[in-house]
């Protein structure tokens, strides 16, 4: 394998690993904040216990999120020095502002975790809110760099020199708001569905223990409400993301849909595999006219096919599957939260039947899978460009040649950290089952200590 492929694999692996913890780092604080607010509103101690236990989990996840993020940041400069040179000259603002977001998050996370017993409930809520703000802002800002790669703005390249730099125009590049919103809402939805997974699993295991069961039921209902809202927003905004691709990166949308011929009344292909030889989707379902409608809100919209682009500029065709996976999971999770809502609020039934419970259990992993699909689609679908129509990935890669060894070493580290974090979480929550806390009284002022 050549060094370019290795560098891409290494960076993709790093990001694929970081994103698991990063997404939860954005999504869980929202759940913690909701639990804190519900506790202050209802004075039901169960919510305080939820906030405390989720914070504990989040504090452990941080032990991986932060170092892998640091790796990602430094690897950008180590593996793609040519890319970072351009970014440094044009798109440095989001990286720089992200540092402030990290500081806010780090300061108030430490305060929330280590000083919870010494600060007032108001300060605690303020601290979690700032953690949420810091984490969301860092996600939005880093996504902005990704948005800039797809829709570059604010500079020109003249004879190899970067000229006419306008850093704020680069910052507010055309796809910034849509991409950033998509990443933020999909992270909130994932945080909620991970809680959904855990509480549904615990409910299945504790059907006999009424006290524990009802604790987890409250968590489940909260997670379904938040997950439902944000999965809907994710889908609506995802639709806009697709329209944005139609406008700015048509070959990416064409690859996502396996569309070869430019046409109006274009059909939407679901499932199946793109066959390059016969130029069609095999084993898929076609919905006539739907793609045109999705891309431009009208059946007459002309959607550009891959054949209008030189083949060397085609993204890899397997992104069709990734895109489908993301959309399918998104739709399924909206459906699932609706089922939960109808069953509980409209039909007023308190117990969910087993099949629904099992669906709840897999909701979190599915959501994470969707995040992975979405990102690999977004980054791989940009190939061969690292900055769309301006800079090729092959031109920015490092000239060093020892990447193979590093790929193995880093993968090993991710495996070690991944296994360790699971073991530590399991160990901790086994040692501190929720039963202990449900019986023990919390101090009257509503304070709590996480460590």
């Amino acid at each position, binding site marked *: 394998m050549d060094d370019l492929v290795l560098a891409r694999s290494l960076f993709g692996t790093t990001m694929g690993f970081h994103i698991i913890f990063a997404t939860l780092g954005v999504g869980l604080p929202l759940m913690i904040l909701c639990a804190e607010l519900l506790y202050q509103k209802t004075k039901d101690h169960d919510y305080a216990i939820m906030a405390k236990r989720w914070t504990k989990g989040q504090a452990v996840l941080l032990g991986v999120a932060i*170092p892998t993020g*640091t790796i990602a940041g430094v690897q950008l400069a180590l593996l793609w020095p040519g890319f*970072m040179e351009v970014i*440094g000259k044009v798109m440095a603002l989001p990286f*720089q502002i992200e540092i402030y977001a990290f500081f806010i998050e780090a300061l108030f996370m430490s305060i929330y975790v280590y000083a919870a017993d010494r600060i007032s409930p108001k300060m605690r809520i303020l601290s979690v809110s700032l953690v949420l703000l810091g984490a969301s802002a860092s996600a939005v800002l880093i996504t902005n760099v990704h948005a800039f790669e797809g829709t570059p703005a604010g500079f020109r390249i003249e004879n190899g020199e970067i000229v006419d730099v306008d850093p704020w125009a680069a910052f507010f590049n055309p796809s910034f708001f849509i991409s950033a919103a998509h990443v933020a809402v999909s992270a909130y939805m994932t945080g909620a569905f991970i809680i959904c997974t855990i509480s549904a699993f615990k409910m299945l295991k504790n059907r006999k223990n009424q006290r524990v069961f009802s604790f987890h039921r409250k968590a489940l209902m909260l997670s379904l409400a938040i997950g439902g809202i944000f999965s809907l927003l994710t889908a609506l905004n995802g639709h806009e993301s697709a329209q944005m691709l139609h406008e700015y990166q048509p070959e990416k949308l064409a690859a996502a849909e396996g569309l070869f011929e430019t046409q109006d009344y274009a059909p939407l292909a679901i499932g199946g595999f793109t066959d390059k030889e016969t130029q069609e989707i095999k084993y898929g379902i076609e919905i006539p006219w739907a793609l045109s409608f999705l891309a431009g809100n009208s059946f007459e919209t002309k959607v550009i096919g891959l054949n209008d682009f030189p083949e060397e500029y085609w993204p890899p065709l397997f992104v069709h599957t990734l895109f489908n996976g993301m959309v399918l999971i998104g739709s399924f999770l909206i459906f699932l939260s609706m089922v939960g809502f109808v069953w509980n609020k409209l039909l007023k039934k308190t117990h969910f039947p087993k099949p629904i419970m099992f669906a709840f259990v897999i909701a979190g992993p599915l959501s994470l899978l969707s995040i992975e699909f979405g990102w690999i689609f977004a980054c791989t679908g940009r190939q061969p460009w690292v900055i769309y129509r301006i800079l090729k990935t092959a031109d920015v890669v*490092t*000239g060093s040649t020892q990447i193979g060894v590093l790929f193995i070493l880093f993968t090993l580290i991710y495996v070690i950290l991944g296994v360790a974090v699971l073991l530590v979480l399991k160990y901790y929550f086994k040692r501190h089952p929720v039963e202990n806390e449900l019986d023990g009284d919390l101090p009257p002022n509503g304070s709590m200590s996480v460590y």
Partner: protein
Amino acid sequence: MTADSLLAITVLWGFVFIYAVMATMDFGAGFWSMIYINKEKTNATNIANRYLSPTWEVTNVFIVAIVIALVSFFPGATFILGTVLLLPGSFILILLALRSGFLVFSHVAKDYEKALTYVSGISGFIIPALLMLVLPITHGGYIEVINDVHQLKFDALLTSPNTYAFIGFAVSSTLFLSSLLLADYSNVADELEAYRVYRRDALILGPISLIMAIFIMLTLKNEANWLYTNMLDYMPYLIGSVVSFFIAGTALFLPSAKHNHRIGRPRLAVIAVTIQYLLASFAYGRAHLPYMIYPDVTIQSGFTHPNTFRALFITYIVGFLILFPGFVYFWKLFMKDKRYMKQNES
């Protein structure tokens, strides 16, 4: 050297200095909590952990801030540094990841605390050594260009006595600074046993770090003479630095101002030592200019686009104004609040 690039390199230097102090504390505290893990009685491990737990995340942000400041202010330097540092940089990242991860895990999984503490303690003093390698690499002589690609000459780097002087300095300084700061911390917390232990460690390690600094100067003369002669121009700073060192040493033997039976004024020593490192690193940094990487990259040739610099600088000011109250609150909760510092459990 334009005013802008000088301003930028000053900000970068400021970050490096803050990180150097915070990181030595951080890494050193990890090391000491490993060394004293079996001395339950002295509480020395607890003291280190109490300091370490809330700060490591904030410290880590500074390393990211340095990389970002380098990339955004000096993209030209990033290109060469990124290329030659691929291997050493990756090793630092791997160790850092292991350390941060296991540091957090060790607080949660008490049964595994010992094994996990060893991982974070050992990687904690190798990392400063590796980080310090970046300095000699920028002095020139260790980079060659093969087929248009900048490459690190590992054999030259690893056989140079100057390299080892820097490594020795990094390790001894880390342990010196951290033991001194922990002495101060345990003094404030009235943990007398821990104070005694850390004061003793500081007294042993201080002279060693000074010897290493002299060793750096001696080897620099041969290995990077341009830097050596430039540094001699800043002799008053270097002398001031050594004087501060001796003031710090003296402070550790003065009788305590507040308590009758205690020896030493660690707070004064900490301040003197900070001034010592500030003066020395200023002399080093100033002598290094205008080169970022000798002789290929100067702060001018690597500098970012002026428009970007202006926009960045505005965010620095706004960011600082927003963050400052947060830092003050953080400091009050963890460094001044006796309720926190005196807890028995970490």
